[in-house]
């Protein structure tokens, strides 16, 4: 990809071309996402944003506001502008339409979150959404509220696939499916799940590799290297002459003689 997608490009792709989105945990995954041609990358750890932006300069980067970090529209807008200044192309915000509207009003591309929202499980419980007609209708109304507030994307999480597929063509927003089937505009997974790095993988996620085994192997290789260093020190094999600085002739003797003449405490 030569030019990173803008929110405008993402909206134009709706109904025409499916996009692929990845939550990355750091610059390593971001760099690999670039090579893999992933369209959108997401991250919510502010400390890593500069490194992630630098690792994927040509990929659409959605930076996530952490639920609980902002408690007013002013704080949300401040945080969103700060994220844009760090190079974000869009902002994910799990808050209500009332909090999202001020962002959209100031021209910030916002992705909202509906269905199962992990940050709100105290309220909803950990379960799929949209299994009854009544819940599907509530979801439809919720989505329309986000649309009215000016959000341009909405993450649909663990929504019954036929319901997500019915909602998608009925909203102007780009729908992002995480566990909500293949009928949305964007398919979204976490890098740690694809690589099987997390302790537990959600049912909707698929692993294409096993980095858990790699992590154990690298740990063993680290232990072996550190043990070899320790053994070499214990047996006098480290440092070797090539790894030390020799003194010019005479300096060591002159210094030792001078030291021996110093008064003892």
């Amino acid at each position, binding site marked *: 990809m030569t030019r990173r997608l803008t929110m405008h490009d993402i909206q134009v792709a709706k109904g025409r071309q499916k996009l692929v989105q990845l939550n990355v945990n750091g610059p390593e*995954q971001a760099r690999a996402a670039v090579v893999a041609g992933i369209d959108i990358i997401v991250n919510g750890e502010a400390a890593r944003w500069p490194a992630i932006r630098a690792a994927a300069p040509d990929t659409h980067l959605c930076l996530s506001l952490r639920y609980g970090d902002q408690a007013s529209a002013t704080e949300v807008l401040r945080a969103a502008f700060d994220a844009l200044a760090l190079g974000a192309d869009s902002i994910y915000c799990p808050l209500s339409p009332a909090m999202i509207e001020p962002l959209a009003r100031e021209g910030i591309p916002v992705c909202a979150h509906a269905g199962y929202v992990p940050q709100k499980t105290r309220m909803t419980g950990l379960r799929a959404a949209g299994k009854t007609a009544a819940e599907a209708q509530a979801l439809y109304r919720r989505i329309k509220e986000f649309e009215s507030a000016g959000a341009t994307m909405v993450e649909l999480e663990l929504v019954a696939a036929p319901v997500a597929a019915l909602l998608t063509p009925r909203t102007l927003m780009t729908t992002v499916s995480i566990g909500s089937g293949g009928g949305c505009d964007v398919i979204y997974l976490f890098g740690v799940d694809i690589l099987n790095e997390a302790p537990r993988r959600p049912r909707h996620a698929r692993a294409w590799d096993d980095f858990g085994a790699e992590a154990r192997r690298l740990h063993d290789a680290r232990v072996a290297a550190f043990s070899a260093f*320790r053994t070499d020190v214990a047996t006098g094999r480290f440092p070797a002459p090539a790894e030390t600085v020799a003194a010019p002739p005479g300096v060591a003797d*002159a210094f030792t003689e001078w030291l021996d003449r110093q008064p003892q405490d």
Partner: protein
Amino acid sequence: MKLEVHHIRALKGVRQLTELNVTGPDQAHAAQAAGIDIIVSGRLDQRDAIRAAAPGTHFCFGLIYGHHVNTDQALRAAFDALDAGADSIYCCLSPRIIEGLAREGVPVVGHVGLVPQKARLTGFRAFGKTLEEAQRLWREVCDLEQAGAVAVEMEVVVEPVAAAISSRTAMTVISMGSGGRCDVQYLFAVDVLGETTARMPRHARAYADFAAEYARLHDRRAAAFAAFRAAALDASYPAAPEVVAGNPAETGAFRAWLEGSRP
């Protein structure tokens, strides 16, 4: 058994200790498993994770040069690190500031020879090649000892000078590129693992090739992400077990409602 400062002092002249500068919990965990005596890090964002990953290893937390501009600030940061579980504090500031920490019972490690943070002043070079410079090093070491430092990192000092000083000071002398006749051998874990694709210091030794490992992992990450992308685009992901099917009757009712509500 975790070495405390008094153990480390008692081991002076008894056996060489090993010390690694670690970047995070993965290296800290491996250092403990390898029986490394001391780990060091100055990364505040990793401090708690490192402590948790190596609870049985002496952890020296480093105060970053430039973060503290007087004794009060250095002492505040040192106490915070001790509260977080650090066993000692590295501080490359002057004996005047180190004295303020030592006076309150903080075990402090000073730094002489090549102090990279002060290379603007000194240049990047080996120290102690002339008698005059060796004498200056000795005085600096005495000043740190007088200030109450319990150990001193001696970096890129000519080997016989470092050895002569080490045998004459009560402080534990930590050799970073200063030869094998000090009390502790200290390297950066990234160098030991061969992680640095950039230039390796002359005094360091690589015992593994993690640069190659990381390149390989990058290729596998990219392949896994590309497989996800291909599967999403050809609709082989998500498959039936990866979606919530919902209830056909309820979905039908929702569809009817949608179509009724939208003329």
